[in-house]
């Protein structure tokens, strides 16, 4: 059987795209991008994180175009990102400089600066609020105005832009090893294809842009499949990080010569894993090891799961698949995984025909059953 090139479907595709537009508009109301940006903060954060592109307005547009499908919105954002030049790299961002809006520890009750709950669903009743279906702009504006003007003495002088890290306590007490800054230039998975073994920078970059559901599920697998693995969140903080860019025309790059370009909201998690180690005398000791998670926006479950997977991949060799970096890193990217699954919808006429021929051939020697399947030939 020879290959036959075919073409066609242009008109059908045009009509299909019209149907898609019709499905988006058929209820007679257009979703305003500004409203998506205002009211879908968490979805926007998720899309920005998975697409690895920080811009709320573009994320809102992508969500509108994708009719709320995160995987489609991420695809649109990644495609748009590929059309833009990358002219600059930021100066090294130190998450200690975060202007914190939320910060909790499940390891210590009393932490310097205190447990700051900020905005989180964790403390809500999770009951559907039917009043929201009647909510109006005017009420929202009034509520916000009242909230901002709300009085009440706050004598707390805590500087939210200079909160000490909770785990510094463990380091100061020798319960965790102290590291010096490692200033080696990171690898970039958007520039070079991933090779194994992956570097730490590649691992963290892939984890932070991983699909939220996939990262969360694999983090859950790690807890359930690796025996007694039960990490504790040393610190979870969410807030804004300032970004600075070097002066491209000044090679000296003095600290004060940089350009401030704005800030980005991120979630950072440090997770503690008690692990057996051998000290210099060959005796067994328990020491805390750290898993690290950091991602765009308020994505707490993802950041915690990232920190678990970071530790699993750092440990490496084990009988558990979750410690295998190829297993984890090659399967969590939204565009790669949804793209590969989706390609199954594309025409496979020739390859399938070949398989069909093989099946027919293998059945030839068997006694004929009633009927034949000639009508299935394509």
């Amino acid at each position, binding site marked *: 059987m020879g290959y036959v090139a075919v073409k066609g479907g242009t008109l059908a595709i045009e009509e299909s795209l019209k149907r898609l537009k019709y499905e988006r508009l058929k209820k007679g109301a257009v979703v305003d991008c500004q409203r998506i940006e205002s009211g879908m903060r968490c979805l926007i954060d998720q899309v920005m994180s998975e697409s*690895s592109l*920080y811009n709320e307005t573009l994320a809102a547009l992508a969500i509108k175009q994708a009719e709320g499908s995160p995987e489609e919105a991420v695809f649109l954002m990644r495609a748009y990102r590929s059309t833009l030049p990358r002219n600059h790299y*930021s100066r090294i961002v130190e998450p200690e400089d975060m202007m914190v809006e939320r910060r909790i520890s499940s390891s210590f009750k009393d932490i310097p600066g205190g447990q700051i709950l900020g905005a989180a669903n964790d403390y809500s009743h999770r009951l559907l609020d039917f009043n929201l279906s009647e909510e109006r702009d005017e009420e929202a504006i009034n509520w916000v105005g009242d909230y901002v003007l709300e009085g*009440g003495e*706050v004598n707390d002088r805590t500087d939210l832009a200079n909160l000490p890290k909770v785990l510094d306590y463990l380091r100061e007490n020798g319960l965790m090893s102290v590291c010096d800054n490692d200033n080696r230039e990171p690898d970039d998975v958007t520039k070079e294809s991933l090779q194994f073994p992956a570097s730490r920078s590649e691992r963290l970059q892939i984890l932070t842009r991983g699909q939220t559901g996939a990262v969360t599920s694999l983090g859950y697998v790690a807890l359930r499949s690796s025996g007694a693995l039960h990490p504790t969140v040393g610190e979870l903080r969410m807030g804004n990080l300032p970004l600075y860019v070097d002066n491209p025309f000044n090679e000296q790059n003095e600290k004060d010569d940089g350009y401030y370009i*704005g800030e980005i909201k991120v979630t950072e998690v440090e997770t503690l894993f008690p692990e057996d180690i051998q000290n210099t005398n060959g005796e067994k000791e328990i020491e805390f090891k*750290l*898993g690290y998670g950091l991602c765009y926006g308020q994505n707490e479950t993802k950041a915690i799961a990232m920190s678990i997977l970071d530790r699993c991949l750092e440990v490496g060799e084990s009988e558990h698949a979750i410690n295998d970096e190829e297993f984890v890193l090659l399967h969590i990217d939204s565009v790669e995984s949804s793209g590969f699954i989706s390609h199954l919808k594309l025409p496979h006429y020739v390859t399938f025909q070949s398989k069909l021929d093989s099946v027919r051939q293998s059945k030839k020697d068997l006694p004929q059953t009633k009927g034949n399947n000639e009508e299935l030939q394509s």
Partner: protein
Amino acid sequence: MIRKKRTEILIKGSEEVSTKLAQEILQAYDVKTIEASKNSLVMVKVRESAQRSLFYLGEVLITECKVMINGFLGIGMVKGHEPSLAYNLAIVDAAYNGDLPETKAWTKALLLEELHINENYEALKRQVLKTKVNFDTMDVQ
């Protein structure tokens, strides 16, 4: 005023400030646009705290613009799609790079705007700190 501080004030503060300063220069000098405001990307390089190594967190959409005044280049860079703000920032940057006399009088306006920014920060801080947990030890019966 040093670049780091003035760009912080002009971006965190009201856009009216950068517009006013840029207008002052536009009325007195020939401002050549070297590169009109356009979107590009900044890759964010971040330090993680487990091993204190570096990795790339992702990219940020920015608007950047370049202008020249009296042979001095000015660059405007700001997060998001902000073409007029990037243009105004570039003019202010060129004015400082060229040490134009107008910049001497700008310090006061910039410091005043910094006060407003600090007031807003204090207000935000008060709201956030209201969510700080005050643990009470339960009585043991």
